[in-house]
């Protein structure tokens, strides 16, 4: 590269074969490295996800110590291993193996994006026992209070979700009301300044339970015989 005239010739001096060989070798090495790391981290990531789900389930169903996975399809419950379309629900049991709650995922449009949450449904009192926000992009300082504001979370310690007489829907739809206007057990007291985010949480639970509660109540006996370890013996 002593003179400028040699620069244009450079392209011709490198055979295409050499370029392909170099790129191919680099790509192969990269692939190998990625596969190695993927194989090594796969069980660790799966374990992390399991722990994360377990923690969330035990948080929304207070007192739970074991869980089993089920699939809630269009015509009822199926055990976790079967391949039918539907959402995964988590039955939670206490130390004696008795069913104390069912954790379900729900979501609704919030202020900026979909708010995703997990909530615990108690089939005995027909009420919601707790919620945990899984994913949200609500405004920090305002909407994001739905995840940790104690007064707001207190709404979901015994939120009424009774079925109607026919048993095909909720007797009273769960909905959010303006801050300080809560009168009935099925209403959610919104956070002042975060009404849209609060409404999203209430709507998500309402929509999910309108569909799930009748099916869960119908198939409750199947859930009561736990498939996990720790029976009555």
């Amino acid at each position, binding site marked *: 590269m002593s003179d400028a005239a040699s620069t244009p010739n*450079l*392209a011709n001096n*490198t055979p295409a074969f*050499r*370029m392909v060989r*170099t*790129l191919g070798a*680099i*790509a192969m*090495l*990269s692939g190998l*490295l*990625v596969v190695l*790391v*993927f194989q090594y*981290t796969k069980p*660790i*990531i799966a374990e*992390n*996800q399991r722990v*994360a789900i377990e923690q969330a389930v035990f948080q929304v169903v207070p007192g739970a110590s074991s869980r089993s996975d089920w699939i809630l399809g269009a015509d009822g419950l199926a055990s976790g291993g079967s391949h039918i379309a539907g959402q995964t629900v988590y039955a939670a049991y206490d130390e004696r193996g008795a069913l104390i709650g069912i954790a379900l995922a729900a979501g609704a449009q919030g202020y900026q994006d979909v708010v995703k949450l997990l909530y615990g449904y108690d089939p005995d009192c027909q009420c919601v026992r707790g919620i945990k926000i899984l*994913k949200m992009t609500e*405004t*920090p*300082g*305002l909407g994001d209070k739905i995840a940790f504001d104690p007064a707001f979370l207190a709404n979901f310690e015994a939120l009424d979700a009774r079925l109607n007489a026919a048993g095909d829907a909720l007797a009273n739809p769960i909905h959010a009301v303006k801050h300080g206007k809560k009168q009935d057990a099925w209403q959610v007291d919104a956070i002042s300044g975060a009404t849209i985010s609060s409404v999203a949480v209430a709507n998500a639970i309402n929509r999910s339970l309108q569909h799930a509660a009748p099916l869960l109540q119908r198939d409750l006996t199947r859930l009561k015989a736990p498939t996990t370890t720790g029976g009555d013996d």
Partner: protein
Amino acid sequence: MARLPNQTEQLSLDTFVRGLWEENPVFVMLLGMCPVLAVTNSTMNAIAMGLATTFVLVASSTLVSLIRKLIPKQVRIASYIVIIATFVTVVDYAIQAISLELYNALGAFIQLIVANCVILGRAEAYASKQRLHTTLVNSLGMGAGFTLALLSLGTVRELLGSGTLLGYPVMPENFEPWVVMILPPGGFFVLGVWLLLFAWLKQRRERRLPQQEAASHAS
């Protein structure tokens, strides 16, 4: 003192320190602004992002320097991108394995390290021309400088925006958090103040230099 781009550099302390201060990738070269503004709303995110970027930077620069004589000039950018993307994928899986919570907090910005121009810039402007050990030291310095810059934004934004540091409350009870600081505009505010400081320091040094020269001539 002027360093010609094609000259092989001798290893010195300056090889490392340059990335921290004189050629700081964020405050001086203004590279990689996207993660700088996006993930610095808390100290923990800033640390994780800084370390992840440093790993990719050091690993890819080292590899590029190692095989720099084997890569034909025409396909060098493609080669760099493949190498960088590989290490980003490695980091992506590693962070998922370390903490899912952290992975969710950083979101898409881990994958976007591929497009971080600090890394491609180092590969093209430095690693492809310099020897292995100087590249290693220089990229470590650049990574440290990048991490330092993220931290200077992250700590200020978390302190003012949430009143906490690494999640622990440090502000007095009656402190009202400036929510704007953890929102996107806060990133621009804090970055602007830091850039102002760096520009002022540079100007002051330039003003002093002629005075010092004059003084040395007089004596």
